[in-house]
């Protein structure tokens, strides 16, 4: 099976981001970056499909040189090949998706895996856009995936429950938490990955359709107040909720 996984390099979930001097982008100073967690489920699923069907897992990422760190991690987890689609400019989801689709076309994969969204800008559009551009079925928020004889049965998470859908390959599948438990890259895998070459090529140029005007942090919250720690504080708490917060 020819498996293609697209991954993104995003700020660590624990990082406190700051808006950059231009007011439109985040300040990268002091930020730890990581493989986007939902993309990690996609990588793991790609590796599991290869274990079942044999074949090859190619991992690709669009971005600057820093994205190589994330590609290296995916290689260390066991992906066969890594490709950096080089472009350090700011793009909207459409411009990203078009370039990814251009690359995917060349590779004619049986399946394209994404995380359900990147945890940086949270647009959650790229996977579906790539599917649309390539005229492939698109299945998002997948928590269970079964493939037999080119037929897909996938379980999706929906509000209040799960939905089971079917489709055919080739298709785009977007991973949700619960799909699998990503493996740690083994230390041997890390050393093997070090010897692999990350192919670099320029991402195709596509103009963005949406421009970011400004970025700002949510207003600071007022600090909470601890009225007391046992039952004796209840009357005072009720009074404050009633008289000050006016919520009861």
């Amino acid at each position: 099976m020819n498996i293609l996984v697209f991954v993104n390099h995003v700020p660590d979930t624990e990082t406190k981001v700051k808006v950059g001097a231009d007011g439109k982008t985040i300040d990268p100073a002091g930020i730890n970056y990581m493989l986007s967690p939902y993309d990690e489920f996609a990588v793991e699923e790609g590796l599991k499909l290869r274990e079942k069907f044999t074949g090859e897992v190619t991992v690709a990422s669009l971005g600057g040189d820093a994205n190589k760190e994330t590609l290296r991690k995916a290689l260390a987890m066991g992906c066969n090949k890594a490709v950096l689609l080089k472009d350090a400019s700011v793009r909207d989801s459409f411009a990203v998706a078009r370039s990814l689709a251009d690359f995917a076309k060349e590779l004619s994969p049986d399946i394209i895996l994404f995380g359900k969204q990147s945890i940086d800008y949270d647009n959650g559009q790229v996977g579906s856009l790539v599917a649309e551009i390539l005229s492939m079925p698109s299945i998002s928020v997948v928590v269970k995936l079964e493939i037999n004889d080119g037929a897909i049965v996938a379980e999706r998470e929906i509000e209040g429950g799960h939905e089971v859908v079917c489709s055919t390959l080739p298709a785009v599948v977007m991973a949700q938490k619960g799909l699998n438990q990503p493996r740690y890259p083994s230390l041997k895998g890390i050393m093997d990955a070090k010897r692999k070459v990350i192919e670099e090529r320029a991402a195709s140029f596509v103009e963005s359709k949406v421009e970011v005007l400004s970025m700002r942090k949510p207003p600071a919250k007022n600090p909470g107040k601890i009225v007391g720690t046992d039952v004796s504080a209840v009357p005072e708490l009720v009074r404050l909720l009633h008289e000050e917060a006016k919520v009861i």
Partner: protein
Amino acid sequence: MAKFQGVDYYNTENLLSEDEILVRNTVREFVDDNVLPVIEKHNRAGTFPMHLVKQMAELGLFGATLPAKYGCAELNNVAYGLMMEELERGDSGIRSFASVQSALVMYPIFTFGSEEQKDYWLPKLASGTAIGCFGLTEPDFGSNPGGMITRAEKKDGGFLLNGAKMWITNGTLADVAVVWAKLDGEIFGFLVEKGTKGFSAPEMTGKHSLRASVTSELVFEDCFIPEKNLLPKSEGLKSPLMCLSQARYGIAWGAIGAAMACYDAALQYAKSRVQFDKPIASFQMTQEKLVHMVTEITKAQLLCLQLGRLKDQNKAKFTQISLAKRNNVYHALEIARMAREILGANGILDEYPVMRHSANLESVKTYEGTHEMHTLIIGEDITGIAAFN
């Protein structure tokens, strides 16, 4: 407590390669996910978390610098050090397990063993299907191992071993013990397999330190060791001391991990604990403690990084390893105690990792060469005068 984000006041991250960072991050994640959630329970119960052995082996934590043909990762020494740092951020006992398996069992078999011994034992030890231990210290010979009483006597087809070893990490768990004994007055290494007649390894109990680690005695009573189990290239006290240098190198890094865990706990606590209507982090005495901690951690990091680079070029002297072990463990223990002070009464609870690290580091300061012996080793090196013999 918030997830650990690393301590890097001097941007040492820029001095690491991509794969070194990936090794550290992988082990960091492993420790966060698998060690921290269970370690206090095991520390209380005085048990080693055996279920972690398989996972540690799968990650490639055993014999990580040895060649790939034995199933090892072939890491450089800096990546190996970062791995030890993260393991000890979890617990000194977990790091000790990996240290013993790697530096004190796999290293001597690799360095002093026959091809048959290497081919047989190294893949088993790398995959965690066999556990090893190292027997040098005796009840009456600690800092002076050359005085050991354990004797091997030549017999038909092998040797008869008599004596006792003490303070042996993993002794009771081990499938194979690398035991140092005198044969005609000269020290050699022997592989003693579990189940050998006359060999027993009772666990030592009552420890207030390294509680999540198994410590044992090894007893040999007319224990027959076949000739094939002699480490053929071992000779003299230098051989076990070479192993100790490997282990001490890992300890020098490991101590930074324990120190970082304590500093991180103290910093988070100081910022959230309010007294006199403000966080205790706003008081000068608390700040002085935190600054001292981060300063010593930064110095230790730089010390180890340069030591690792030297070791990768085969230029590290054992006296330089002594300096790093001595300094880093001393300051890690100091940092653990300071962190306990910042945490006040809460510092003694196992809701926080501080008291556990503090108690562990008391052992770490003494084992693999006491603080005092390392002082004298460096003292001899710089003056040319040995103070201990």
